[in-house]
């Protein structure tokens, strides 16, 4: 069954898009991430203009994240103080990101920039996650307890000024790296149409030593607000948010997320991180292949204006 998308100006198969929402929702529920890094390339592959995709996945990710947020909130697994600090950096990042996105649309290199950013980000995060989880699995095999808080593992940015104690997460760090992380995630989210959860969770764990109990719930607050801000800013600045596309994706996404969350609870933490790492790496490799392998067509057309 075809449905016409009013902003993307093209019909899509409603079941195909619903299926994509379900699949990505399943993965997002399983790993506690938004799943934008998978959904955005999938929708571009279907033939929807990348600019419309980036703007329209934001509300879909927001819907998935809000479901997750409510669950973690009921379990009191959110560090709101830490979330607020991340947010104050995140909003600045999002505003800068939407501004740069609007500017780059007029330049021809937006595709290249998005492609390169995906390769670098997904490649790095994927490799790091696979290595870390492989070590954890090996440690678990040898019967050792995985200890996230080794003595002397403090790095230079933990000694920066403006130190704050985040009670629920039981960490005492400078707010400067917290702001920086928030800004980076907000910026990347707005430009690439991803929530950034797949990067934020490892950053919070490895850089700020946030315990696993609060890390996912807290990261969801930042990515949720970032995606809400991105939706409103993209709608105001670029008029490219396709509400019909977003609605179909949301319905698939929230249903898939429920089954994903149940599946995720049956798998051990380090195995889950290994799976996510491999998935992230595969998407990164896919983008790298696109950049390196000779394209089928050396020419492409882009709409630059109406008369």
């Amino acid at each position, binding site marked *: 069954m*075809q*449905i*016409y998308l*009013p*902003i993307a*100006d*093209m*019909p899509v198969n409603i079941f195909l898009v619903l299926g994509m929402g379900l699949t990505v929702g399943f993965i997002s529920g399983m790993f506690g991430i938004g799943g934008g890094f998978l959904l955005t390339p999938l929708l571009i592959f279907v033939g929807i203009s990348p600019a419309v995709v980036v703007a329209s996945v934001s*509300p*879909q990710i*927001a*819907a*998935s994240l*809000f*479901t997750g947020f*409510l*669950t973690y909130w*009921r379990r009191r697994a959110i560090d709101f103080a830490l979330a607020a600090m991340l947010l104050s950096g995140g909003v600045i990042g999002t505003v800068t990101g939407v501004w740069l996105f609007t500017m780059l649309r007029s330049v*021809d*290199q937006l*595709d*290249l920039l998005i492609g*390169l950013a995906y390769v670098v980000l997904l490649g790095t995060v994927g490799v790091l996650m696979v290595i870390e989880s492989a070590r954890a699995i090996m440690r678990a095999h040898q019967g050792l307890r995985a200890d996230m808080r080794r003595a002397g593992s403090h790095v230079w940015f933990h000694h920066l000024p403006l130190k704050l104690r985040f009670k629920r997460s039981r960490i005492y760090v400078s707010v400067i790296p917290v702001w920086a992380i928030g800004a980076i995630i907000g910026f990347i989210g707005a430009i690439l149409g991803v929530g950034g959860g797949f990067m934020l969770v490892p950053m919070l764990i490895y850089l700020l030593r946030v315990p696993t109990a609060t890390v996912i719930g807290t990261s969801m607050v930042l990515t949720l607000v970032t995606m*809400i801000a991105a*939706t*409103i*800013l*993209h*709608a*105001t*600045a670029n*008029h*490219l*948010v396709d*509400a*019909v596309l*977003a*609605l179909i994706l*949301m*319905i698939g996404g*929230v*249903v898939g*997320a*429920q089954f994903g969350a149940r599946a995720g609870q049956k798998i051990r933490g380090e195995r889950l991180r290994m799976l996510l790492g491999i998935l992230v790496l595969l998407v990164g490799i896919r983008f790298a292949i696109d*950049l*390196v*392998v*000779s*394209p089928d*067509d*050396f*020419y*492409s*057309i*882009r*709409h*630059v*204006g*109406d*008369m």
Partner: protein
Amino acid sequence: MRRLVLILLILAAVGSAPAIAERLVVSLSNHRVQITSNFTGEDLVLFGTIEPDKGKATRQAGYDLVVTVTGPRQTLRTRRKERVLGIWVNTTSRDFVGVPSYLAVLSNRPVTEITDAETRRRLQVGLDNFLLPQRIGPDVADTVVTDPFRVSFVRLQQERGVYRESPTAVTFLTPAVFRAAIPLPADAPTGSYEIDVKLFADGAMIQRTTSALEVIKAGFEQYVANAAADHGFLYGLATTLMALLIGWIASVVFRKD
């Protein structure tokens, strides 16, 4: 949804035709194509008759017709990729200024058989002869037909289904009555379309007439598109609320504890 409303109203003349020539009367099955949520393209039909001049005998060779349909004008950038440091990058590009977003050249036989090269160029008959001005430095001009950017532009537009040349789309029902099928693809741009009908006999154009159609978004599609364009902030806010509502419903429906 394929509505083929056969409107074949051949009334007495428009009257403006020169006294010596044939009269050409055309009628379109639908002048206003509405894009609704189940729009997947539409095939329009153009009907027409050729009324021979009463004083003269019917022409021996018969008539030829070329129908050119052009959609709203756009500026489209054609880009070429080259390998730079191992990566494929768009290195060169050309802007095609004010070219039709939709272009269909429909005829009853190949345009090369209908008339000679000079006439085709002068009257812009066929995709190869249609003016597609490019911005090259400070100038805006069409290039030779073999220009790689022009060739690739036309090829890509044909692959998308928005440019086409069909030597079989016009059929003669009788020697003087014809129909032309105009296929509008699912992603046909909205706006005004012009239809230019040229009548040839013995390789020369003997009559010409025009018609028009409009592609518009209707109903819900129109409402959403207008809201997104005119009230961006409120539209964004409404989309966000919808997202939160769906997220909340899901968390209530699937709540386990």
